[in-house]
């Protein structure tokens, strides 16, 4: 029996895994501006800042829903469906979440939850789940999970 390949993030460097996963932003060392997804560019996007260096910092794991929706039809490529062949595609929900650091981040909603579980201003928490499986094995992503109130 062969062991299955280990799960890897769909994009390297966007989030940490483990018990308390978090998004990784690039922070300008000069002005403190935060960029997600973390930029590879050196120059700060703040037009009044000449900063040319960013450092990786973890963002808050909890935020509030700015808005939410779902996909009731399968999106076109380069979207990759999570189901294996023969299985029907399942709709998924997506939320725009406002973090205390002052930015709104789009993310899929955790498996098993839909728009009915969310409304503007409700609280969510970051989790890491499998997005789909490709030739290198399971690919993980960050998702927003409703916080039971």
């Amino acid at each position, binding site marked *: 029996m062969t062991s299955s390949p280990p799960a890897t993030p*769909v994009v390297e460097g966007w989030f940490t895994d483990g018990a308390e996963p978090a998004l990784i932003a690039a*922070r300008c060392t000069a002005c403190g*501006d935060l960029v997600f997804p973390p930029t590879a560019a050196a120059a700060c996007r703040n037009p009044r800042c000449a900063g040319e260096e960013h450092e990786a910092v973890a963002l808050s794991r909890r935020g509030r829903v700015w808005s939410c*929706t*779902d996909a009731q039809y399968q*999106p076109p490529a380069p979207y990759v469906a999570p189901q294996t062949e023969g299985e029907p595609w399942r709709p998924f929900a997506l939320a725009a979440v406002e973090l205390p650091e002052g930015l709104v981040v789009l993310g*899929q909603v955790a498996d098993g939850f839909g728009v009915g579980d969310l409304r503007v201003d409700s609280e969510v928490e970051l989790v890491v789940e499998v997005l789909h499986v490709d030739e290198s094995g399971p690919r993980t*992503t960050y998702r927003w999970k409703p916080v039971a109130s």
Partner: protein
Amino acid sequence: MSGVSGRSGVVVAGVGMHPWGKWGRSFVEYGVHAARRALADAGVAWADVDLVVGGETVRNGYAGYVAGSTFAQALGWNGARVATSYAACATGAQAIDTARARILAGLSDVALVVGADTTPKGFLKPNAGERWDDPDWLRFRVLGMTNPMYFALYARRRMDLYGATSEDFAAVKVKNARHGLANDNARYRKEVSVEDVLASAVVSDPLHLLDICATSDGAAAVVLVSDACAARLGLADPVRVAAVSTVTPTYPQAVIDMPLLATDSTAAVAAGERTFKESIGAAAYEEAGIGPEDVDVAEVYDLSTALELDWMEDLGLCARGEAESLLRAGETTIGGRIPVNPSGGLACFGEAVPAQAIAQVCELAWQLRGQATGRQVEGARVGVTANQGLFGHGSSVVLVR
């Protein structure tokens, strides 16, 4: 209205369109059709055009990347200067702005602006290939985020913040469908009921299929001329371009925008007084020397029904959160206080990207001349357009007469 001078110097001498649809023919053919109509409307010979500006189409090969020269060749090389603009959905307005700037600079007397598109079926999707540094590719791969999902985020927010309902969104479609009934250039000319909209499939909650605009083939063209040329053509009381706003966002852009995965952060700099969409209209009003209270008619980008309501507020036609009450009171219907999308809007046209912002200008020209048969806003003298595209593009054009 009288008393609005705007910035004179650029006159809309002629407008023309190729009807929107799914015709399956070359965008060049549509563009030439629209161009010839606009030239005939202006009473200008193609040989006398000294500048042609094309709106680029990205889905039709190299000919689309160099649309300006493609149209010039198809009309018959005449030695005119040439430019091609690309600004996503604001492409047409940027093309108009390019022509206007050369006229105002005294470098052009007669300019032809053309946008045309032939579109694929279904969701607009990114070009092929793996591009891990392209947000437009990443949003599909990492999030499965289609354009309608962005529209749905804005719609859901209206519901939770302002009490909008699915019936309100449907009422926008009903109104626009009625407006477009008599418009020969519209693709969909059929009455739609609130029940029809609500019975159509939900694409992305809360938006139904009939809340979301389709993609279409189509073309629109305008002939812009200098004051001196307008006088030579004997144009009395012509429609003038009072403003073209193509401002970019101001950092930090704190409202999520297609095709990005996140907003700028307010960690280093607080969000500004105006959102990006508000700033697009504000710059147009400032340039024209008018305010929203002077506007008689508006053509706004109803990529979704709910977005029309957002635009009414972004343009200052009503206060934030009040668009639904205007809609319900019939004030945005032809005959109301501020008719919105008398052409039928994207609801009746579907989007032909590089042509759409030009089509908005064509409609306002007809409205201000009193030639919008079957959909005329009586006595309209000031019109405004609003439009937004990917990657920080947007536009607002003010026409006055």
